[in-house]
């Protein structure tokens, strides 16, 4: 993939809740190029998680206008699993606990399901074990945690590290991180950032949702967007995040009004 080519393209995306008449995204325009890291910041409730869910294919939302494509393919028409096979990965703001399903089984099923969907060979169990162990070690996830049911009894920080482990195993094209830094202690933040940085390459784009500059000290963004009330109201370089850190959103919000 040629650097700079559009990976994710969102045009004028309008989204409302399926169940109620509530418009949440009100015309989002966003492009993430391959090889780049884009950060999204914005006040609580501005629609950041909603955007990430809509891209991942969660039910309960209705797209009323606009489009979203990944590598030129219409994402909005696809099932979540098809999007995943194409390369979408969402690290959840609140990772889900699945009692009874072992973390290992879950990871292997996911890796092989995606490989199968792409017409690739499944990973043998010995190879899989080797790779998982390596990547888990780098994230300081111990073997015992891998045996436990998915996210059950994990601490907040452990859940976030587990998200990054999944991302590392699945090697997606577009990595969406929704507040992966929240709940992480300083050391875990470093581990997770290293995990993310290790995946940075020419063929991969990142959309990093965060409230804090601190994460962006570790994962240096190329572009920073500010989202407010369902729109991207400002786009700039890394300095924009510093500005938010110092002054909050008031000035930026005043600018657009």
């Amino acid at each position: 993939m040629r650097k700079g080519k559009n990976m994710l393209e969102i045009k004028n995306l309008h989204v409302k809740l399926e169940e109620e008449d509530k418009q949440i995204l009100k015309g989002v325009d966003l492009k993430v190029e391959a090889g780049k890291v884009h950060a999204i910041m914005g006040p609580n409730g501005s629609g950041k998680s909603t955007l990430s869910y809509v891209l991942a294919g969660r039910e309960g939302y209705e797209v009323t206008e606009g489009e979203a494509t990944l590598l030129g393919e219409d994402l909005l028409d696809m099932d979540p699993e098809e999007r995943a096979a194409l390369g979408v990965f969402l690290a959840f703001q609140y990772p889900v606990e699945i009692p009874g399903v072992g973390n290992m089984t879950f990871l292997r099923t996911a890796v092989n399901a995606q490989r199968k969907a792409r017409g690739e060979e499944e990973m043998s169990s010995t190879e899989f074990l080797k790779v998982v162990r390596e990547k888990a070690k780098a994230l300081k996830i111990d073997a015992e945690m891998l045996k436990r049911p998915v996210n059950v009894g994990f601490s907040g920080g452990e859940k976030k590290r587990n998200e990054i482990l999944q991302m590392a195993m699945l090697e997606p094209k577009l990595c969406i991180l929704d507040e992966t830094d929240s709940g992480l202690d300083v050391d875990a933040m470093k581990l997770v950032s290293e995990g993310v940085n290790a995946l940075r390459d020419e063929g991969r784009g990142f959309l990093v949702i965060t409230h804090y500059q601190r994460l962006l000290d570790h994962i240096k963004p190329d572009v920073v967007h500010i989202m407010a009330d369902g729109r991207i109201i400002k786009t700039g370089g890394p300095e924009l995040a510093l500005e938010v850190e110092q002054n909050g959103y008031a000035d930026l919000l005043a600018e657009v009004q």
Partner: protein
Amino acid sequence: MSAILSRSIKTKPSAARTTATEARMAALSPGASSGWSVPAREAALARVQSMGLPQPRDEYWRFTKPQGLVQAEAPQAALFDPQEAPTFDQIDRVKIVFVDGVFSAEDSDPLELAGVSIERLAEATSDIHWAKDLYGVLEERGQDPVERPLAALNTWAATDGVLIRVSGKAEKPVSLIYRHESETSDVMLHHVIKLEEGAELTLLENGPAAARFNKVMEVEVADEARFHHVRTQGRDHERRAATHIFARLGRESLFKSFTLTANGVMTRNEAVIELTGDDAMAHVAGACMGDGREFHHDDTVFVTHDALNCESRQVFKKVLRNGATGVFQGKILVKEGAQKTDGYQISQSLLLDGDSTFLAKPELEIYADDVACSHGSTSGAIDEEAIFYLRSRGVDAETAQDLMTIAFLAEALDEIEDETLREALLERLTAWLERRRG
């Protein structure tokens, strides 16, 4: 109230019940005309006549229609080829095969196992036999306080079965295999198992057995003996089964029973367990998958604590879809003086759609003051958040649902102590689901 008294004041069966009972009995005859079992069979006949067979309005049959199980002729049941190796195929065991209830010497292993005597009921025709102390005896004890007429009917008319007496630790499992090859077979088998003091046996059962199968198993577990029972009930979609286990446990003994059921239009599995020796343990568990409007599965369990410091555990899980029905009736009765009883009961169902139904009647009846008993029953839909999480990782919707199904049932499967058997059933379950996905 004693059994005698409660029966003597019982009103006569209604005319409709009597007619239905007579119609059913006319299609049967006593399973033996000579030998040690005759008195027990005659007594059972009298029991059936006085109780009459279950009718739709009976309280104990409130959730399950007895019609197909009691009507004179067995409803036809198409044969089904599961296209896979039978359960337990990998397990080293003594195989005893019944084809539509008829013993097949050709398919069975020699009935030989060190420390274990195995005989067929149909061949045990002498006048004196150890099984005389148990045949119909545990069944009759189990008729109070709730009547189980189908079991008495079986004691009267059973044509065959196995009589197993265990004096040592059996080195491998005894495996009863029930093949179903006739669309109209109507089968009654009756097994008696006696574990002597300190003895140990694992009994396996698998296969659909018949178009209609009525099976009784009476198990005596003497002091310090251990009995493990693991069964799968065969996948023939149209088969019907009414099974009863009657068990009596001695001091420090262990009784464990696990059942995996998928398919079958009608299954009623009753387990009646009496803890009569101190420090005994009884665990009954079941996992069941029901698919389709015709599917009906009923687990009915009655555990009586009549000794000190005993533990009982009931764990039943059901996954139901496309209009299937699951039933659980479970009771723990703690008799006066049965102090330090630890009784636990849980029944749960996972409803994969709004069409399916789970009916539960958990009951505790306690006459001792120093006991710990708990029971719970839940029924819920699949966790959509978890499904989305799985799908967002690339797992397709059906596989995601199957993973959740296995996760749900695994808690019941965990009740199987033997790891090889547990893995075998887990693999079986996974394969079934995979095949269903196609």
